[in-house]
Every structure is written in structure tokens, then in C-alpha cells.
């Protein structure tokens, strides 16, 4: 088993929390993993990505080869397109539909969504709206992760356990909010 994921977003949107959650889940299932992050200058509101590789066998490269990626999981619509040269033809794009506009020349959102929909396998969800509806507006990143869970070869319970560990210091309330966010995202994927 092997799953290569590119996590995409803008510095500060919480893709490292997504990465940490998948990472915990992978460790609990004795999977090999490599996860390359972006630190430094780009974290100041720039485009950021993380290459996340999971496998039952040892992994060679920290970077996913272009054309070999199984999932682009993005917390922002335009950012999901930035890495499609990495995606396999039948790979999945799972993306939040709410744009993060911090540049003056952000393209027309409908046009962006239309381009995403041209791909074969796509899940587009309004993770910001779902997160607000469940009363946890800051958990939109975890909502997006929830929608990707059916395509990652880790049992769903392991993701929930991972969230409990990662948000342990922040208390029961935050843990429950994030578990609910994860389930809400999952429900979108299941209902498709």
C-alpha cells in the first residue's frame, strides 16, 4: 500500500495540523512515512505545500515525483491547481471552495472551480461554511481532511485518536470540535 498526498494552502491556514494528524494516524498503524514541509519566508502568507508520503514499505524520496501523487488535499481552491502536475491522471483533488484572498489579482473563483471540475476525480466542499455550522470556524482544515479520509489507507478511528493526541494540550472542547469537524468532512465524501 502506498498513498502520496500533497497538502496545499496558504501560510497560516493549518496544513501542518493536517499533516500532524495523518502522521499520528500512520504511526499508530505502523506505516512508513515521509513528510516534507515548507518553513521560513513562505510561511508569511505565501503559497505553501507539504509532500506527505505513506507506505507499507520503506520510502526513498522525501519529494513526491511529478505525475505520481494520489491526492491533492487543499484548504483553498486556487492552491489545489498549483500542484496538479504532481497528480496522477486518476488522482483525487479534494479542496475547500472558500478562497483565501490576500493578493490583489486573485482569479475569478467560479473559473477556478470550473477548472478543478475538469479533473476526473474531485470533491469540492465549503469547509469554512461547514466548520461555522458546527460551531467551530477554526477547524475548516480538519473538515477538509475529513473529506479525504476515505482515500487514505488508515482506519477512520485512527484519525480520531490522532486528533485526541494532537489537541490534547488544548482541552476536551477543542478535541471534540475537531472530531466533529473530521466527521462532517467525512460525511460530505460519503454522501457523494
Amino acid at each position, binding site marked *: 500500500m502506498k498513498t502520496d498526498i500533497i497538502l496545499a494552502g*496558504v*501560510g497560516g491556514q493549518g496544513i501542518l495540523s493536517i499533516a500532524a494528524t495523518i*502522521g499520528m494516524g500512520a*504511526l499508530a498503524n505502523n506505516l*512508513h*512515512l*515521509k*513528510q*516534507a*514541509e*515548507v*518553513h*521560513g*519566508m*513562505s*510561511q*508569511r*502568507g*505565501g*503559497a505553501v505545500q507539504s*509532500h506527505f508520503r505513506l507506505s507499507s*514499505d520503506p*520510502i*526513498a*524520496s*522525501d*519529494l513526491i*515525483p*511529478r*505525475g*505520481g501523487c494520489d491526492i491533492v488535499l487543499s484548504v483553498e481552491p*486556487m*492552491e489545489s*491547481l*498549483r500542484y*496538479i*502536475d504532481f*497528480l*496522477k*491522471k486518476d488522482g483525487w483533488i479534494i479542496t475547500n471552495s472558500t478562497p483565501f484572498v*490576500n*493578493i490583489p*489579482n*486573485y*482569479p*475569478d473563483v467560479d*473559473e*477556478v472551480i470550473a*477548472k478543478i471540475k475538469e479533473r476526473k476525480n474531485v470533491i469540492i466542499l465549503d469547509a469554512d461554511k461547514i466548520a461555522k455550522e458546527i460551531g467551530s470556524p477554526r477547524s475548516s482544515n480538519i473538515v477538509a481532511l475529513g473529506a479525504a479520509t476515505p482515500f487514505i489507507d488508515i482506519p477512520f478511528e485512527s484519525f480520531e485518536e490522532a486528533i485526541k493526541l494532537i489537541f490534547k494540550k488544548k482541552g476536551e472542547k477543542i478535541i471534540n470540535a475537531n472530531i466533529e469537524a473530521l466527521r462532517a468532512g467525512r460525511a460530505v465524501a460519503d454522501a457523494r
Partner: protein
Amino acid sequence: MQKLLLLGAEAIAQGAIDGGMSGVYAYPGTPSTEITEYVQQYDLAKERNIHSQWSANEKTAMESGLGMSYAGKRAMVCMKHVGLNVAADAFINSAITGSNGGLLVTVADDPSMHSSQNEQDSRYYGKFAQIPILEPASQQEAYDMAYFGFQLSEKFNIPVMIRFTTRLAHSRAGVERKPLLDQNELVLPSNPTQFVLLPAIARKQYKGLLNSFAGFIEDSEESTFNHYYEGTDKKLGIIACGLAYNYLMENYTETELAHPVLKIGQYPMPRSKVEKLMEECDEVLILEDGYPIIEELLKGYLAKEKVHGRLDGSLPRDGELDPNLIAKALKLASEDEVTEIPQDVKDIIANRPPAMCVGCGHIDAYNALNEALSDYGLGRVFSDIGCYTLGALPPYNAINSCVDMGASITMAKGAADAGLVPAVSVIGDSTFTHSGMTGLIDAVNESSPITVMISDNFTTGMTGGQDSAALGKIEDICKGIGVDPEHIIVFTPLKKNHDQMVEIMKKELAYDGVSVIIPRRQCIQTTKNVALNERIRELNLR
């Protein structure tokens, strides 16, 4: 033992701690920062009383590390590649003094310049200093090299360089620990003049270094970090250095690699293994995630050897490697999968460069500076290394240079000497104490007509909010250097103070001498830093 999930940078820190380190010395710099931060936040390091406070710059770090080594204990000095330029004097001479306690110089290079002004390859520095270099291919090797690096250093009484790159520094994987070793006792060098580089002694020490080199090669021959993998297809042999080995192997997860491969993790190169590869293969491909240093060595000046790599276009001349580039060099690239972004998609993806945070004090300072300078015309603002370098981008377009730590003040002085008056310097608080102070002395000694804006946000911001050595000291430092106290002016960079700031700046720009203006407001990324807030209150900086 349960594996730890660590960044490459963290693996080096853990390896050094477990290998008996007594102190880490560093100045923050992407991608090396996380090494020292890991030690600072690690309970075991506190229990073992391991030094981990930030140094003022890489040179002071290197010298402190050398001092700890002199006293017999194991020390590691960490920096980004351009930091080694700052530390170069101490670094090169530490190869002549040699070490006493194990001494590691860990340098994180940044090919493709993700967060840097160049992509220089620190292996050249290691070669220049004539010391052993270790280059990890994985997080586990990063751990192992820090752990065993101290022993290698103590075997030859020589500093050892660990060279790694951004991609490994900031990538996480499982790492297995080794038994925790004791720290060294305090022991003075057996030769009392070892560290006294008077010419007569230095000549002797240098001959000792030259005589050690055969031993370094022998150690490389036996090193487990260098491995010769036999192969049947000898039309091509491959030398893969450090991380490049992983990118190579990524292309052979489903098929077998039939070419002989020499994996390099320790330099100087293991001579007999290189000879074997060159002899038994018709041609050789060199994979290095950096400059073509080994390629150049083996190709020879007259390029008589059939050696391929970055110099003959098999691989790009610059930038970091990846699995696809190596597939192309080996002619393995398949056309089955989409590997390009279609043009119509490219057209709608807008660039999203990093930017100063909403609410950042640098922004208010730049807005005022741009207005204050409008009477004088463009092209007179010399800036430095930090978040404020982003002032080069629209909508500010506020600065005209960014070269190296501290260059803002001295370049402004030189331009003023040439007649560009007024000339302005923009520098951050941490960069000022790193390398700005000495330049300010030059300017004061000549009463240069420059205006130095020290944008003080109480932290080393760009690297994530580390301690600033300048905290609470800037006015006293400037006065001590000899700046007229009437021309040291502090104000708060806020939108509501815009007119007041412009007025102050206009007045100081018109002054025929050195003035220092200090826009002072806490970095908004650090507002939750309890310890820093406490210090700011104590020093009454608000």
C-alpha cells in the same frame, strides 16, 4: 525502541544530545533554526544542562563552540549556509587549531533558494578547511552522523562538518535512537599551545592537518556512510551524494537498478571506491544536491573523463534535485502521466508570494519613509536581511538593496561617500546586533550623512520569533558607538502616528551626520510569547 517522528534538523539535535553534546551555539537561519530550537525545548537537554541560548551571530557561535571544545566538551555549532560566510574566519582557523572535545559544525544549505539570497554549497568550505564532511541522505543518517560525528572529531582532533539541505531539514520521518552517552569531563588540551596560532605554531599545526588527511580518506573508505552497490550494467556507474541517493532510488521502487552505485555520505571521497567505479564503468553520472563539486573533481579540467551531471546539461546547472530530474538524466521519464500544468490552468493561477503580516509595524514605518523620501527621489534605501526585506515588493517598493547581514548601514555609508545624500539604511533589531553595529562605528567616525532606521520588533521575526540579542539595548549601543543622543529617536509605527513619523524622518534626513531612528513595536507573531512579554514589561519597552 519506539521511533521518533523528527524533522531532519531535529534528528541532528537528538543525535547530538544522545551523542554526549554539552552545548549548541547558533544564530537562527532557515533551514537550520529548528536544530537549536529542539534543544531549547527538550526536557532532557535542560536536565543535562546543555547550553542552547542563541548567539549574536554565527561567528560568535563558532568561537564559543570552539571554546567549549578547547575545554574538552562536545559542542555543535549550527547555521545556514550564508551564516558560514560570517563564521568563516573562525571556521577555517579551527581546522588549524584542531579540536579537543568533539566539535561539529552543522550547516544547512538551501539549493533553489527557498529562503536565501544564494545557494552556495558548504562542501566547498569543508574542502577549503580540509576537514571531514558528513552528508546525510535520510533523517536516520542525520541522527547517526551527529551521534558518531563527535567520535570522528575526537578520533582526529578535528572539527567535522555536517552538511545537509532544506529538503531534509524540513522533512519528517521515523528515527531510531541510540543509547544516551555521557558528556565529557572538563579536560584541557594535552598540548598547551594547540590553540595559539602564532605563525611558528600555526605552521606546525598546519603540517599536522595536512598529515591527517590520509587518515580522513582511510576513515571514509571504511565508513558505513559510504557504500558501493555492485551492478551488472557497467555502461553507466552512478555516484549519488547525500539526499540525491533517495531521489535516485525513488526511480527504482518497482524495477531493479542494474548500474553500480557509489553512495557518498562522508568526505573526503573514498578513493579506492571511486577508482573502482571509474575503472569498471564506461561512463559515470554524478548526482549532487548542490554545486557540481565532485563532478568537477572527477571530470578534470580538460574534461577527459566521461563524467555526466550538472556541467554537461544531464542535470540542470542550478537548483535542487528531485526524482523527476534524475529520471530524465537516466532517460527513464515516461510520457504516460501528466507532468505539466495545462496552459489554460497556468493562466488562472496567480502567484502568491510571502508578504508582511497585516498589522506589522514594518508596514507603517515604510509608508512613512516613502513619503518622507518623496522630495529626494528614488534609489537611496539600503536594506538588510529580515521580514522588512519584503518591503522590496509592491505596493511598497521601498528598498533598493538586500545583500548580507549588516550591509544596509555600510552600503548606505559608501553611497553617501559617493555623494548620494541622504542615504538611508533599514535594518532590524536582531540584524543590527548580528552585524550592523561595526558598520555604524565606521559611519560615526566619519560623520557620514546617513539615516539608519532600526526597525525594532523585539525579535528575530523572519525565522519564527527567536530571541533578539538587541532587546532593550539599542539606544545604549548607539550612544556608546558615538551617535549624538539628539539624533537617536524612538517612535511607535502605527497608522495614527503617520504624520508624526514623516516629520521626524524628514528632519533626520536633512541632518548632515549620522542619525538613528527607531520605529518600535512588538512583532504581532510574538504577542502570545509569555517570556518575551515579561521581558518587555521588565525593560519598560512599551
